[in-house]
């Protein structure tokens, strides 16, 4: 794949250059109608904009033209939410064709989707849901990702999702399941660090160990978001709701990620509501840059020690 080829080339160039390594990570924001004015007036502080693909599948011509205009002035990536790729059921070809048309129009730097199922039988769930982690959903996801690559022309990055329930009927833990899908598909990973933090909190595993077990060379991008505590039957769980600021542990995970990954990362802050003034979101982008710089610095120190 061209992305992996470019990354390998970049790594070769990096190791041939003398002195300290300087990695050009990018930090951006999810496009939401409510944030449009803030985003457009601060493009100098936003490296990349992530657009929800499904919002534009059936959008009027002028809205799609506006999206093309945005893509002409700033890097744009597309993020899908309705394909339901991690399923034993084949993905809806019409939705893939809509994705393909939009990608053709906008020429995003990449497109992404979730390792989730969103419908079962005749029921539309209406949101991303964790499927049973079984061989059937691993094989189903790999087949669906290949279908997506064939129709759209480029495989999507795939994102880990947050879940409030350990998926019933699972044979694998989350890290094993994700690694098996990545290992059997053409897709790289969009690692959502708040989803990782929420799942680690809710199901008692170590998020840093999870990070270390992922194939670092296959992590292309990251998401940041916030959430809140919810409760039922006397049990508390952390809900990934995209309505709150990014918590400290997520920035710490971003620094860990930047210390592990040797290629540039694209990092997107997601906010779906409870919108603060744009300056608050821009400050969170700055904090993300600081976390990335801290991680890259640790990586440099490690490499200098190894070289000495």
């Amino acid at each position: 794949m061209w992305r992996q080829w470019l990354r390998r080339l970049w790594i070769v160039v990096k190791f041939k250059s003398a002195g300290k390594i300087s990695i050009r990570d990018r930090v951006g924001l999810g496009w939401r109608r409510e944030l449009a004015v803030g985003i457009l007036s601060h493009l100098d502080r936003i490296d990349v904009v992530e657009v929800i693909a499904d919002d534009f599948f059936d959008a009027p011509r002028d809205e799609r033209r506006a999206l093309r205009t945005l893509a002409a002035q700033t890097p744009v990536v597309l993020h899908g939410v309705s394909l339901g790729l991690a399923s034993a059921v084949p993905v809806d070809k019409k939705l893939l064709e809509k994705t393909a048309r939009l990608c053709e129009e906008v020429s995003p730097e990449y497109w992404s989707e979730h390792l989730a199922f969103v419908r079962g039988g005749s029921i539309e769930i209406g949101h991303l849901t964790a499927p049973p982690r079984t061989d059937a959903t691993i094989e189903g996801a790999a087949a669906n990702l290949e279908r997506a690559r064939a129709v759209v022309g480029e495989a999507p990055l795939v994102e880990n999702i947050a879940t409030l329930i350990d998926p019933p009927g699972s044979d694998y833990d989350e890290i094993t399941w994700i690694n098996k899908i990545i290992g059997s598909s053409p897709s790289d990973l969009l690692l959502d660090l708040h989803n990782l933090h929420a799942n680690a909190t809710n199901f008692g595993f170590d998020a840093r160990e999870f990070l270390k077990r992922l194939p670092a060379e296959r992590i292309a991008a990251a998401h940041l978001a916030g959430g809140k505590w919810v409760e039922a039957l006397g049990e508390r769980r952390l809900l990934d709701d995209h309505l709150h600021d990014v918590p400290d542990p997520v920035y710490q995970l971003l620094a860990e990620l930047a210390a592990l990954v040797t290629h540039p990362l694209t990092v997107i802050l997601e906010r779906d509501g409870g919108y603060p003034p744009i300056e608050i979101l821009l400050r969170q982008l700055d904090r993300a840059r600081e976390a990335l710089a801290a991680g890259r610095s640790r990586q440099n120190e490690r490499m200098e020690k190894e070289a000495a």
Partner: protein
Amino acid sequence: MSAARLEAFLAKIYVDESSRERFLADPRGEATKAGLSEREIEALEKIDRAGLILTARSLQKKRQRMTGKRH
């Protein structure tokens, strides 16, 4: 295909309140009626009930927000 049947069953109990209540009252009976395998039925008998309730609640809120956006 059993895996697809399990996904359909989960979708039903996540989304539909009366299906969920029937399931919580009689997990084995409802899962058997859905044609699931013995292994899947046993897994559903041990379902994380707090997680199921929170998932259903969260999905309902998200669907309401999406509906609100379209009006």
